[in-house]
């Protein structure tokens, strides 16, 4: 079928040959006819350069005919007087055809070089954008955008990602996404490539390879990350289990020991020994109970299931009640309570702050020399109240201070404990919107403090 775009170059070829003839016409008599051949050669080269091989071949043939008709005597006929002109014709024809070949090849190479550069740029941009993509979704969008520019509408479906492969949609041409180790999915294109267009297929293949590689890289790094997380959480569970099973068993040792010795009729216990055994077993059950309470609270904190019901509370009452519940545990250690006059009510979940106080007091009791008093000091701070538990324990080095409130960190491993107390205290205070921390006081005591906000005046 003849269409305008295919016909036009030939038309230009004819026009150029005509133009060369027109330019040569006034020069009749000035130039030797053979030199006018140059004009025709120029027309052939120009045609070859702009419109390629076919039109320039036509130009070469037309040039020979026009030269013969217009410039070789007898003019305006195809007849030739001088047979030497046949050599000129042959030369013109051969040169014209050759030039048209060479020019067309050069042109073709220039075009394909340009196209190759374009492809290279496309691939470069693609690899840059793929590297930037963080999620699989972003990655697919990027791939889609780059394919979109060249291959029409895109559909990408990944294996095992839910979307069924719409095989029957004939409007798409499907290409496999092959990773280095496995098939990853398929890409459907609406503007298909034909096997004849090698460059396009090569580009497509290169793009698909890059996308597959990026996808697989991403999958690998995800897997590596998951493995790492899993290992970390396994580590945590191991630590937790080790620590807990140990701490659960220690109180059971005393309890079981006391019970078995009481049960055994052969063991003659003095009243004093009996009493001491029982008292010990009793205090161990309290310890066990507090441990379980701490574990439960930690689980709630971790899972985010902790609800803080902050209501106005009397801090003095809170402290007194906590001390009463810890009375047996503190083994007669003196606890001083300093309260400012007119202490306002604080906003707190009574039970949770009681646990904070319990944990901090237990900590102070555990890590300070026996017989030295512990102080609970409260201070008004702007719109809040600070509670500080001070003990006469040894100063903490910086390394200890840094991990003081982390889980499973214990000040000294020669003391029983899970290393949960302080981390739970901090977690509970923070759940109230307060702050918890450690400082060495001016009079060289260890101070563990936390803040609570004041309740509105009633």
């Amino acid at each position, binding site marked *: 079928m003849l269409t305008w775009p295919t016909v036009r170059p030939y038309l230009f070829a004819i026009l150029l040959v005509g133009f060369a003839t027109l330019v040569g016409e006034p020069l009749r008599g000035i130039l030797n006819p053979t030199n006018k051949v140059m004009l025709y050669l120029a027309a052939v080269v120009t045609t070859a350069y702009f419109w390629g091989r076919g039109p320039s071949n036509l130009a070469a043939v037309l040039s020979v005919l026009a030269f013969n008709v217009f410039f070789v005597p007898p003019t305006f006929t195809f007849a030739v007087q001088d047979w030497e002109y046949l050599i000129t014709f042959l030369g013109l024809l051969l040169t014209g055809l050759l030039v048209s070949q060479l020019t067309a090849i050069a042109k073709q190479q220039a075009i394909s070089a340009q196209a190759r550069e374009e492809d290279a740029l496309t691939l470069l941009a693609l690899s840059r954008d793929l590297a930037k993509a963080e999620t699989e979704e972003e990655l697919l969008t990027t791939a889609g955008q780059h394919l979109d520019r060249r291959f029409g509408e895109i559909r990408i479906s990944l294996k095992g990602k839910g979307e069924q492969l719409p095989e029957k949609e004939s409007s798409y041409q499907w290409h496999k996404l092959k990773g280095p180790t496995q098939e990853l999915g398929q890409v459907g294109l609406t503007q298909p490539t034909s096997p004849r267009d090698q460059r396009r297929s090569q580009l497509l293949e290169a793009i698909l390879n890059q996308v597959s590689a990026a996808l697989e890289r991403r999958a690998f790094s995800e897997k590596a990350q998951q493995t790492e997380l899993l290992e970390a959480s396994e580590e945590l569970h191991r630590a937790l289990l080790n620590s807990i099973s140990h701490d659960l068993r220690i109180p059971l040792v005393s309890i079981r020991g006391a019970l078995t010795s009481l049960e055994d009729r052969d063991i003659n216990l003095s009243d004093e020994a009996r009493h001491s055994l029982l008292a010990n077993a009793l205090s161990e059950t309290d310890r066990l109970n507090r441990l379980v309470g701490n574990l439960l609270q930690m689980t709630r904190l971790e899972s985010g299931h902790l609800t803080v019901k902050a209501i106005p509370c*009397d801090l003095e009452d809170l402290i007194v009640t906590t001390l009463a519940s810890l009375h047996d545990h503190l083994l007669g250690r003196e606890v001083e309570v300093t309260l400012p006059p007119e202490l306002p009510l604080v906003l707190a979940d009574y039970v949770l702050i009681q646990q904070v106080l319990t944990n901090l007091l237990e900590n102070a009791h555990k890590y300070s020399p026996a017989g030295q008093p512990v102080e609970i000091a409260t201070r008004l701070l702007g719109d809040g109240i600070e509670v500080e538990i001070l003990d006469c324990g040894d100063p903490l080095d910086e390394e200890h201070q840094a991990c003081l409130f982390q889980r499973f960190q214990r000040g000294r491993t020669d003391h029983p404990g899970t290393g949960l107390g302080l981390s739970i205290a901090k977690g509970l205070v923070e759940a109230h919107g307060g702050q918890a921390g450690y400082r060495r006081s001016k009079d060289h005591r260890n101070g563990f403090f936390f803040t609570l906000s004041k309740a509105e005046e009633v």
Partner: protein
Amino acid sequence: MTETLQPRILVVDDEPAVRHLLKNCLGSASYQVFEAGTGQQAVDLVRTKHPDLVVLDLGLPDLSGFEVARILREWSAVPIIVLSVRNAEEDIVKALDCGADDYLNKPFGVRELLARIRAALRRGEGLGQSKDEIFQSGPLMVDLLARQVSVNHHSVSLTPTEYDLLKAFVRDAGRVLTHSHLLRAVWGNGFSEEIGLLRVNISNLRRKLGKSSSQHQLIVTEPGVGYRLCLLPPASA
């Protein structure tokens, strides 16, 4: 003591180990004990055996402890002491609101349980009778007729609200009273959420009744639940 005079206690718990413990402890404290493992069984036993007191666990396999308390309260005034695990303050408040008389956290001390049972039984006996006009606990003495309060024989002047609050405690001495119960009893129905108001008055009341050692407070805070007026032996001084 003949068998008929032994107070009869129904123990409701789904854990056989706990039932066993309670049966032994209460049995040796000369109570007659029945056991129920489920809520329905508990309701049936109260209907047929008319126990003098029920010790009720909240976590039962069929009916919850709340439901049991609610059902019993429809036709029975039997004192109910709830046993609950720690960290379940809301449940305790709910159970008390459902009609339970008192609660004890698991794990519990048997001595504490026996004290609660005695107090509850005493209240049960006194039901319907006129209350003593003079109430005494430790250093505290309240003359309900003369509206006079004294601590260690020194007269204490209370505001009308503080007196009403103290009266509410005296009426149910030894028993835990929830925040909302106290607020309703003293301020009226519209105030059952004003816990701050209650805290301020409790704090003032405590101050006026004198600081006692942390071991023997008169008005004890039951964390997350409410308050309790302790029954202490009268001060000899």
